[in-house]
């Protein structure tokens, strides 16, 4: 498979009143053409920041990429000029945000907001762009697109707005679509519709998707590969099957154990005790060590390196070291009962 996007050792920091927050600390992953990758983790794990740094949409002056490269079709986006980025945003890589209620400009018609990108990137005339906007609205399943194209965002429901946002994101046939918690703010029934739509559109257009989420249910629905983030780092990556059926990192176990299951005998959901690390003074060793039930002394002082489990499966955990005691994942973390 052809590598479309390649992140190598990305570090992102924010300057705040209290000091420097190291939100992302050495993230590397690749995305192939037409693939869908899910980045999973709890709030503050750095997943949203990672996605915003790909788009170079970190808040000016406060947030910056400190280190590392983001290669997109051979070009390093981390060093690209703002003007070059304007050509890439929307045309090559586009983004869907979490809350459709706030991500559309309330004083601009839906049509104009879709047309903006088309006019900029594809040099369309007004009428061409409008025609395309109507087609896009039809594509994402909005009834009466000819009429609704001239309406304002507040005339749309939440689910409909997210469809519009998807239409905007896909308007210029981007190669990569970054979806930052696209369903979190929606009702459960609407969530399924939006996920179906995204999968359907991916089949039609062949766009690669980076799905940012904390919801493992969404991951199982849409993604082929998964990267689990914790404390600004990727702690485990693998295919969906590998992450769900053969997880290696205790944090992934915790995530899976805290997921509700219908067939489980124990009715209790397991929480991971403790809170995520303070990224202003990140721990020297494994970020998860302080909450990890299997923590060893080595974990506190030494950063575990990513270890290959299979050709597609990597985890960064000292338990994978041959000197470590053998530990089996807890019952609750087993999704299909397969061991």
């Amino acid at each position, binding site marked *: 498979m052809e590598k479309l996007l390649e992140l190598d050792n990305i570090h992102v920091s924010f300057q705040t009143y209290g000091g420097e927050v190291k939100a992302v600390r050495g993230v590397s992953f690749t995305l192939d053409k037409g693939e869908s990758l899910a980045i999973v983790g709890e709030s503050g794990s750095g997943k949203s920041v990672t996605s915003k740094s790909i788009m170079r949409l970190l808040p000016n002056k406060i947030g910056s990429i400190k280190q590392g490269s983001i290669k997109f079709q051979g070009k390093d986006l981390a060093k690209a000029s703002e003007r070059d980025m304007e050509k890439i945003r929307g045309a090559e890589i586009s983004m869907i945000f979490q809350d459709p209620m706030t991500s559309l400009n309330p004083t601009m018609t839906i049509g104009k907001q879709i047309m903006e990108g088309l006019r900029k990137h594809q040099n369309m005339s007004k009428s061409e762009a409008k025609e395309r906007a109507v087609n896009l609205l039809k594509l994402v399943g909005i009834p009466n697109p000819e009429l609704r194209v001239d309406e304002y965002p507040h005339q749309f429901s939440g689910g409909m707005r997210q469809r519009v946002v998807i239409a905007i994101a896909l308007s210029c046939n981007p190669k990569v679509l970054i979806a930052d918690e696209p369903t979190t703010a929606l009702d459960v029934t609407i969530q399924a519709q939006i996920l179906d739509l995204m999968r359907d559109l991916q089949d039609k257009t062949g766009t690669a998707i980076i799905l940012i989420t904390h919801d493992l249910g969404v991951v199982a629905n849409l993604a082929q590969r998964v990267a689990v983030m914790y404390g600004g780092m990727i702690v485990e990556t693998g295919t969906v099957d590998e992450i769900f059926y053969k997880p290696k990192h205790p944090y992934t176990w915790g995530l899976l154990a805290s997921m509700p299951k219908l067939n489980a005998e124990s009715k209790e959901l397991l929480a991971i*005790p*403790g809170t995520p690390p303070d990224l202003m003074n990140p721990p020297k060793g494994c970020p998860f060590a302080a909450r990890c039930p299997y923590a060893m*002394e080595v974990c506190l002082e*030494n950063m575990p*390196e990513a270890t290959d489990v299979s050709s597609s499966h990597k985890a960064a955990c000292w338990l994978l070291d041959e000197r*470590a005691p053998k530990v089996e994942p807890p019952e609750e973390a087993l999704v299909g009962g397969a061991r």
Partner: protein
Amino acid sequence: MSMSERKLTPDLFRPANLDSNKAEEISKPSLSFWQDAFRRLKQNKGAMLGLFAIVFIIIFSLIAPTLTKYGIDDQELMRSNLPPKVPGLEKIEFLGVNGVDIRGVNQYEMKSVPKDQYFWFGTDNLGRDQWTRVWKGTQISLYIAFLASAIELIIGVAYGGISAFYGGRTDDVMQRIVEILYGIPNLVVIILFIIILDPGILSITLALVITGWIGMSRIVRAQIISLKNREFVLASRTLGSTNGRLISKHLLPNTLGAIIVTSTFTIPGAIFFESFLSFIGLGIQPPVASLGSLIADGFRSIRIYPHLAIYPASVLCILMISFNLLGDGLRDALDPKMRR
């Protein structure tokens, strides 16, 4: 194998002794809302500067008139319209406090004022000591402003609070009244009232209060209505709290921030209106003076005796700016959402 890994000894691979409580520990000491607000206020240099200037002017306006032997209405036409002269500083020419007027004539020598008499801010056309008048005027301006704001606060909080707390029909009637009153320009009402009541400290205060309380009542009402439906108030209500307890423990403390901020802005507003009224001839009547009446008198002769307007105008400007800076600082400190 990397360098770091080679140094790892097998004994490091023993389970670590982790105190499970430690994971839940909160590293920073918790601050109460008011402590946190005060900390934020202290960080705001403008607000602190404003606070110090206000305190300084208040204290100084009380002390300063006692520093000279002249009363507020000690007239002496022999020494009228003297420019400022300050002992010590009179030797530094560019400060302009050496008793020489703008045409270069030493008025103190010309009017043969005794050598040991100094008028720090000069004298007015009746020979009254401007220093005493400016600081007494500051006292009166501040007195009116604080009194008016205090009365506005009491009426506004009571009206807004009752209207919001009881809601329903009470609120409806009370708000219709406010709506009509709110439409009346306060300038108009204030001027009419002063004309009827004859200018004076009390009538000015009353005229300011008559329209001033509406702003406060609207803010208090809006705050209480939004608080009333919040979960913590509902929770307290379901636990059987009395109305008195709800008001004193939940509603008022959470409205206090908005009340304080509003008050900080009504004070300079009152100072402005008082000086404005004095300026158009509806304010404090002689021999008593306020900053506004002093400025108005000063402007009448600003071409020949600029000192008469400059000093009261400076005090007024410093007071206004200080209250605004403090108000901005308080708003930022008490309403973190507004913080940018």
